[in-house]
């Protein structure tokens, strides 16, 4: 309750702050201090509300629906902290929290730059107000009580001292399929609890917990970084709109530039961490699946990077006194687009519209939220585009002279065009599900290969071009040496690396060319002025990244292997031996140890499989052997014990059904369970379940019982023998589906194939050459962004 109140106050303060900032912009000088106070109050309230949410999660206050849905008693502190953003409501909260923190820095930054603050902060607080509306009690409020809407809670999560309350009976719903009983928690139940003098806050004692795929280190780090990137995307938008408000287009470029650099750098890092998570933990087999959720954060990033290139031209041409500079309109459009695309990304992943298309989209949040998200995007699009159209004529009036074809200006612009083209491809593919379509992954790949080649060549060429104009001859004489070395190196790659696809050859060539040109210039710069290093570092990183992509995707090979325990198998020149499995992490998971031998060296891999209690599903985690030139990626598929009797000659009989075995009619009459079995199961006490069976042959009928006995984690099954019928019945399993039996004749040796129990681990092994270059490349790009950021920050006054 208190959380919702704080958030509502934060919303009100944010709106007041926005109005005050706007009034200040309109000339009311005395409102600026109120605007600042209310902005800081907004941030304090948001921080306090977030602290409350964290506090509720850490202290297991399951009366809050959010806490119940995304955490439980067994999570470690680190994971409890990250439960904060495990669901929709909380991830909006995280976005807001990071946005207000970015806003505090932005407020201080803008207040030092003449009249910038009221305009930028008015737009920024507008964005915060919309986000705060999103988590308000009308939409996705993380502080909603569990009683508000009916929800089914596993009986195990209910405080056991209340289990014998008579009125509870009417709220119980058994689910025979999974053998669990659920309690329907609703306002009616709350009323009954209160009536009986029970503190409702003590009713639920455990939560559902997080999806097992989220239970790892990356969950703690990837979402916050991605959301910092999202939060910072608001800033270029605010700067662009503030320039349009004032109708002055010169200064905002330098002022917005460091923010854009830092924002895209962080967003890029966040996207990469997501890719690494997918590769290392989720066993997707790769780092990028063109999944709509990944794509939707890539689109604003691409546009942001495009904007960096054209803004650089505008800055440069301003310094050469060309008025507002070149590409003023382009820069406004791109800066506005970055934020609108972030909102669009939110819309795609939160509205449920990608329901069938994505692995990790959220489920349908309801019509109201859907509409609100549409209003959110439309408002900001209208604001940005509307102002742009309104000011279009003023922007048109200043057209500086054309640049020549061979100039750095034009090549930077071309780079931006290529980046936008890439963004358009991803946009079209990702949006296809809206119209009930979907594109194959090949669509993205085939479109991007030529773009990547162009980017590589431009990347090198543009640096050899001077600003304004360069003569063809000069360009040729400068580039010939790089081109020659690139040709030689590419030829070496073709000969020794076995690259044979023409597109891949071109791609490799263009990447090498980039590295050479940028490397040479970077080397010169290191000797002179470190400050200017950013762009070159980022471009070298990009080229390294592309080489990594070529190696790891185009030249990866994979194989499915059946590894019999103790028996070596051969793959990719490695001898692989499955040596057995062992329980890890308190026996909740199993690690399957594999030894890889080559040239006298041994490497260990231990892919993991386990049944997750959370969703009762088999989960798998790959194991990666990282070698200098390649990764060996081992994804487990299944584990089987052959020779185990459950696979030879077992029969399943459903309740009430019969089967015929050697003229004997066997019937599974019914289950036999004592009245306290359910309770024993829940409390983890020993219990037994029975099956009442009958066997009839030639008019003779014998009834007998078989039992499944559980004591602790140990399960035993009983068997039955009848000399009269010459029959041996062994129970193998008993479940809701029926009873599983192994049948044999007494005078024959046991049906059991105990000859040799073979353990077989099936894995999908693949070799990914130079995949580490992908990570190194992105990290180098990010470092480049930050070097550039520190340089441009100094120029931003």
């Amino acid at each position, binding site marked *: 309750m208190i959380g919702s109140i704080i958030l509502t106050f934060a919303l009100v303060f944010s709106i007041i702050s926005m109005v005050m900032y706007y009034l200040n912009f309109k000339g009311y000088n005395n409102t600026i201090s109120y605007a600042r106070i209310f902005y800081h109050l907004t941030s304090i309230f948001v921080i306090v509300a977030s602290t409350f949410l964290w506090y509720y999660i850490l202290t297991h206050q399951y009366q809050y629906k959010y806490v119940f849905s995304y955490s439980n008693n067994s999570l470690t502190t680190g994971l409890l902290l990250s439960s904060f953003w495990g669901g929709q409501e909380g991830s909006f909260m995280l976005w807001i929290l990071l946005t207000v923190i970015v806003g505090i820095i932005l407020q201080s930054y803008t207040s030092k730059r003449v009249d910038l603050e009221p305009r930028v902060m008015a737009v920024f607080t507008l964005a915060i107000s919309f986000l705060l509306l999103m988590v308000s009690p009308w939409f996705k409020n993380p502080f909603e009580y569990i009683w508000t809407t009916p929800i089914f809670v596993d009986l195990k999560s209910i405080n056991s001292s209340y289990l014998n309350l008579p009125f509870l009976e009417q709220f*119980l719903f058994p689910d025979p399929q999974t053998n669990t009983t659920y309690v329907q928690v609703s306002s009616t139940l709350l009323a009954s609890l209160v009536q009986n003098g029970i503190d409702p806050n003590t009713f639920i004692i455990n939560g559902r917990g997080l999806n097992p795929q989220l239970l790892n280190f990356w969950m703690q780090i990837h979402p916050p970084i991605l959301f910092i990137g999202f939060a910072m995307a608001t800033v270029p938008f605010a700067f662009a709109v503030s320039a349009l408000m004032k109708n002055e287009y010169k200064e905002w470029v330098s002022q917005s530039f460091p923010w854009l650099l830092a924002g895209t750098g962080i967003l890029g890092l966040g996207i990469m961490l997501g890719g690494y998570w997918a590769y290392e933990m989720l*066993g997707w087999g790769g780092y990028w699946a063109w999944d709509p959720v990944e794509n939707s954060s890539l689109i604003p990033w691409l546009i942001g990077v495009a904007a960096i290139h054209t803004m650089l031209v505008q800055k440069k041409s301003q310094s050469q006194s060309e008025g507002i500079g070149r590409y003023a309109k382009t820069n406004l459009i791109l800066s506005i687009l970055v934020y609108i695309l972030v909102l669009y990304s939110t819309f795609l992943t939160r509205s449920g519209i990608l329901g*069938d298309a994505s692995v990790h989209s959220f489920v349908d949040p309801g019509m109201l939220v859907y509409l609100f998200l549409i209003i959110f995007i439309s408002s900001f699009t209208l604001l940005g585009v509307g102002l742009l159209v309104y000011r279009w004529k003023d922007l048109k009036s200043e057209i500086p002279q054309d640049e020549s074809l061979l100039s750095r200006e034009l090549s930077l612009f071309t780079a931006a065009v290529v980046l936008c083209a890439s963004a358009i491809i991803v946009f079209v593919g990702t949006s296809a599900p809206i119209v009930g379509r979907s594109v194959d992954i090949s669509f993205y790949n085939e479109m991007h290969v030529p773009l990547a080649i162009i980017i590589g060549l431009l990347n090198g060429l543009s640096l050899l071009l001077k600003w304004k104009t360069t003569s063809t001859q000069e360009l040729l004489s400068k580039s010939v040496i790089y081109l020659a070395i690139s040709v030689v190196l590419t030829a070496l790659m073709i000969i020794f690396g076995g690259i044979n696809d023409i597109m891949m050859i071109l791609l490799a060539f263009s990447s090498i060319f980039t590295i050479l040109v940028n490397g040479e210039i970077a080397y010169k710069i290191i000797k002179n002025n470190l400050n200017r290093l950013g762009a070159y570092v980022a471009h070298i990183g990009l080229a390294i990244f592309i080489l990594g992509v070529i190696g790891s995707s185009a030249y990866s090979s994979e194989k499915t292997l*059946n590894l019999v325990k103790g028996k070596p198998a051969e793959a990719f020149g490695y001898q692989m031996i499955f040596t057995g499995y062992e329980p890890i992490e308190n026996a909740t998971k199993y690690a399957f140890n594999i030894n890889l031998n080559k040239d006298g060296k041994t490497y260990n891999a231990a892919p993991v499989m386990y049944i997750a209690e959370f969703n009762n599903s088999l989960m798998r985690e790959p194991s990666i052997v990282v070698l200098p030139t390649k990764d060996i990626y081992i994804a487990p598929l299944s584990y089987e014990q052959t020779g185990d009797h459950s696979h030879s000659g077992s029969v399943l009989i459903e309740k009430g059904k019969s089967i015929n075995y050697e003229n004997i009619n066997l019937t599974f009459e019914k289950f036999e369970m004592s009245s306290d079995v359910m309770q024993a199961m829940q409390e983890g006490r020993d219990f037994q379940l029975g099956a009442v069976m009958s066997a009839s042959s030639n008019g003779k009928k014998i009834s007998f019982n078989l039992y499944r006995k559980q004591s602790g984690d140990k399960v035993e099954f009983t068997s039955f023998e009848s000399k009269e019928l010459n029959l041996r019945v062994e129970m193998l399993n008993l479940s809701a589906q029926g009873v599983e039996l192994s049948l044999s004749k007494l005078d024959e040796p046991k049906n059991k194939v105990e000859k040799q129990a073979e353990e077989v681990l099936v894995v999908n092994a693949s070799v990914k050459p130079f995949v580490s270059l992908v990570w190194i490349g992105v990290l180098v790009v990010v470092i480049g962004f930050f070097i550039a950021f520190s340089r441009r920050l100094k120029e931003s006054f």
Partner: protein
Amino acid sequence: MKNKYIIGGFIIVLFLGIMVYLFTQSNIKYENNFTVVKSTNKTVKATGSWVKEKNYSYDSENNLFKFFMKDENGEEMLVVYRGAMPNNFESATSVVVTGSYQENYFYAKDILTKCPSKYQEQPNTQSSSL
């Protein structure tokens, strides 16, 4: 330098043309009616649910995972997927398979399972009360 714009415009048109062409080539339709799925051999994304009552198996020799799916009308089909049972499969409420219908089974290149569990779970409890 008007030529510049003509060349630029030409490249953009060419790019859009290639994109539209590739889009129509590689775009795949969602289909939740298995009668339609069975009547064509085009690649589709068939959406339905897993028939848990029927047997499913994993053939490790050939790395094939076989199971049954049904659509809203109860129309069933056998699905064969090259690969192992995906993570989360047992708890999936709906399954999307990408592939095409062969003579008597659906050959899936890709399986996507939708689990209610990840973000909002409603256990499929039957309405009968005790």
